[in-house]
């Protein structure tokens, strides 16, 4: 099992969710985060004073899948959440030691399918 963390542009969330659904992934956890990489900050104005906002709002998607789905997920995310511009985000892949379904206590593959 692998955990896939994708940090994407917020307005791409619906597309990403749809794309993941098409390859059979119907469960995920989503959080609002802020961050930056090569995307520079932008400046905003308030009562005549300029200030730079460096942390851009992003969305983080977390899913846990079996190993054979990892490549498909990666491709689906790149195609749906990418726009070709700096700031599209990143995907990180981690090994998962165990997964447990809280309701039933199922472990491993049956916990995440």
């Amino acid at each position: 099992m692998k955990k896939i963390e994708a940090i994407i542009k917020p307005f791409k969330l619906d597309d990403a969710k749809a794309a993941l659904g098409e390859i059979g992934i119907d469960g995920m956890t989503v959080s609002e985060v802020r961050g930056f990489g090569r995307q520079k900050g932008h400046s905003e104005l308030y009562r005549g004073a300029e200030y730079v906002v460096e942390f851009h709002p992003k969305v983080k998607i977390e899913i846990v899948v079996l190993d054979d789905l990892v490549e498909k997920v990666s491709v689906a995310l790149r195609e749906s959440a990418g726009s070709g511009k700096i700031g599209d985000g990143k995907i990180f892949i981690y090994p998962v030691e165990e997964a447990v379904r809280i309701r039933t206590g199922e472990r491993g593959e049956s916990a995440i399918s």
Partner: protein
Amino acid sequence: MRRIIPVLALSAGLLLPGLAMADDVTPGQFTANNVWMMIAAGLVFIMHLGFATLESGLTRAKNTTNILFKNTFIVAAGILMYALLGFNLMYPGDFSLGGFFGFAGFGISTGAEGNTIAYADGGYTYWTDFLFQAMFAATAATIVSGAVAERVKLASFMVFSVFFVGLVYPIVGSWKWGGGWLDQMGFYDFAGSTLVHSVGGWGALVGAMMLGPRIGKYVGDRMTPIPGSNMPMAAVGVFLLWLGWFGFNGGSVLSADPEATSFTLVTTCLAASAGAIAAMMTSWFQFSKPDLSMALNGILAGLVGITAGADTVSILGSVLIGLIAGVLVVYSVTVFDRIKIDDPVGAISVHLVCGIWGTLAVGIFSTNPEHSFVTQLIGVVAYGVTTLICATAIFGAVKATMGLRVSENEELEGLDLAEHGSHAYDFSLGSGFMEPSEAPKHAPLATSVAATDRA
């Protein structure tokens, strides 16, 4: 000239039977006048909704409970203080110190003819008079709360406002509206550009200066903006204030006189509109982008500016007064930031600067030949010097005894938590959706979990 008229009317009525002016107003007109004045009192009360929402909208969420608490305290304490001694300090009837000070005693009671036509030429009853004026008193104090927001100690501010509204406001107010020395000199302030707005504004200036700026606002030579947390609240607040001004100026006619009230409301709205446009254009030109909070301040600037002469300037005059106020407020905000006086909501620029402008504008634009620029200037200076000294004394005494400003830690963690131990907004994790099948009879609590496009 409020209480002077009823006193003279009563005297005239007693000395010259048959010539009492009160005979000109029918009971029906008395009722109509009084109803309008009571509505006006309610409208002025609405300004407190405006201040509450405007101030909480332009400050940070971590201080919202604190700012609302201060606003709640001011209106409650203000009305009580005014009943206890403010009303009778402002309208003493007789002055004991040459038009500078008089006191008609503690507490409020109507006296023999307080609820009759004889009280105020059939304009309103004693009780209406008290309430309408009490609403003004509370307004003066709440102006200060915006300028000292996010760093003043709650208890210190409460002590300051008790003395400021309880003593300073009514005593200096008596100089004009109570028939004191400035009134006798011909100084004119229709609804309080000086007596309410600049008095509050001087208090705000002293408070902001003695407190110092918020942490992080001025770093070296740079000014770091501290944006407000809720622009819809700020906008709604300004519109509520505008609505309140219908009573603030409309009620200052002191009757329901059709011509005077309707004309005053028109000049008021024209000035507000002109102020908005002028501020919009000025901020657009100065900052290369139109700033909403400046446009909102522009509305208030126009309203404060017209308040001294709403009944006595021409239509064109009211528009010009508003336009100039709108330009003034934008530059004023910039200047105060440049000299590092931190005013989170622009209270000093709106109320002090435009209050002075509105007062002087009477000397320029009034259609009444008895009004003069010099007399207006004397009034501005007199109020300025006195209020400055009094505000400094009160803030100084508070600073020396209880301290004025919260600690650095308290300011950084937010006054809501530091002074109130609570949040204004629900930040708790876990108050999210319930499954419909599990929910008790009420509907599920709504909290946004999914992120949507907010970039």
